[in-house]
């Protein structure tokens, strides 16, 4: 009789143990499935609009250039070093000297106010330049003459469009 009880107790314990192991396994599987769904994002700097990234200094900031050929507009977004946050600056204008296969052009970017973002002239991350040649010029070399961002001033920043100047 003792043997029967011992066997019964052992079976109950085995079932309970098996059940607990099953629970642990399911919880672990769920956690693993969750982590598989949310893979760790690699450290990548990608311009938010898919435009041309121009590095300022030692990657302290970026300028993203986005061409709108239909409107003949080149937009410049000021971004942080990770290209994650937009950086609003007080600049009244940004000057870019462009070299189109030997032909020299000057682009004057003006600050843009936007109701949607709450940006105003004097506190904006978006600048626009208009020129007819932007409609057709898909490639050019450029130099940002002078760009104050927060407490730093970046001068003569050379880049190629649409490649950018990031060597990484």
């Amino acid at each position: 009789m003792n043997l029967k009880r011992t066997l019964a107790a052992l079976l109950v314990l085995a079932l309970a143990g098996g059940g607990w192991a099953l629970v642990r396994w399911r919880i672990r599987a769920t956690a693993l499935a969750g982590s598989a769904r949310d893979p760790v994002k690699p450290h990548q700097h990608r311009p938010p609009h898919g435009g041309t990234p121009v590095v300022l200094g030692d990657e302290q900031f970026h300028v993203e250039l986005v061409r709108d050929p239909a409107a003949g507009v080149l937009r410049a977004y000021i971004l942080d070093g990770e290209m994650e946050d937009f950086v609003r600056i007080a600049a009244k204008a940004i000057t870019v000297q462009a070299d189109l296969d030997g032909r020299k052009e000057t682009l004057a970017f003006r600050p843009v106010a936007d109701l949607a973002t709450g940006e105003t002239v004097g506190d904006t991350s978006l600048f626009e330049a208009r020129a007819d040649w932007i409609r057709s010029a898909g490639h050019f070399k450029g130099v940002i003459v002078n760009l104050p961002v927060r407490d730093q001033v970046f001068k003569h920043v050379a880049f190629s469009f649409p490649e950018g100047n990031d060597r990484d």
Partner: protein
Amino acid sequence: MLFLLIRRGLRQHLVSTAVAVVLVALGMSLVVSVWVVRTEAEQSFNRSASGFDAVLGARGSKLQLVLNALFHQEASPGNITAEDFQQVKALPVVDRAIPIVVGDNFRGVRLVGVSDDFFQNLEYAPDHTYAVEPGGRPFQVGQKEAVVGSLAAHQLGWSPGATFHPFHGLDYNPNAQHSETFTVVGVLAPTNTPADRVIWVPLEGVQRLGGHDPAAFTDLSAVLIRFKPEAKAAGLMLDTRYNRQGKRLTLAWPVASILADLFSKFSWFEDALRALAYMVAVVAGASVFSSVYSSMSARKRDLAILRALGAHRGFLIAAVLGESAGIGLLGCALGFGLYAAIASTVQEILRTRIGVLLEPWAWNPVLVWGPLLMLGLSVAAGALPAWRAYRLSVADGLSPLS
């Protein structure tokens, strides 16, 4: 013969058999309920997003925006201006932009001010548009008229022609009644979405109620947005503009991802419920073992006689395993009944309190593997008694009891 033997075994220890059956049923219904309610609830919430891709509102939590604007829960995080609405409506990627205003109720049922676009071929699901039931009509802009959601109409006992005075605020306060009288002109045809739980009135109906700030007469609570199907990158583009570049407004997009985040916040609770369900399943297995073991011990003499009469050992194993499988089958049958009761209770709670319709009998693999798990556990629990029956010698079984 085998069936008769199994039936006799089950009936001989009716109480322990019944307890084991109930425990198996509880285990099965809990396992299936936890799984189905979790997956169905998430799918139902996504279905109930009423066909909108995004919600634009004041700067704040995306989840709060979605809950407030699409599920009519929570308070609005703040107001946006009519210019914000016009600007987003004019974007070439936007197919429909529906402004809403909240801030008043009638005895706890929320009033939602909306533009009359709402009743103009707006799909809340593929091939299903918002419509007013026969005998009613949409409200007229500028009039104090209302179209009542089907659940709200049932709850309040309203039909076209009914009149009411709204109360200020989202929570019912009997001392905050507005003097304006609204007339119900229609009942919204059931949509099985949160739209059924509210009272729809013209935008101005809420904006210009007495006591509201005249400076904010044109303000809106949110804009419900549907993108053009061909504008694949619209959400990402506007997410960058409003949420990353901007600091004034919040675009809640994509709605499904925001709702998934909501459910992930409660995943610990779901894990705890699953653990509980598994433990009940294990206890049910132990109970089956106990019942079959007792039954087999009590019928040791009968089994020995059967062996003496020429029954094969395999027959005895089949009899014992058949008994545990019988308990498992009965438990699963009862379990489906219990599951139906649990699911219909949860379904009713979600439908009346949130407006989300759960479909508990929609295909879900757990509806198959849940019962199979319990059946397998029951059969496994009969393995040891079956082994004992297999090893039973005729001499031991027929030896005198005293």
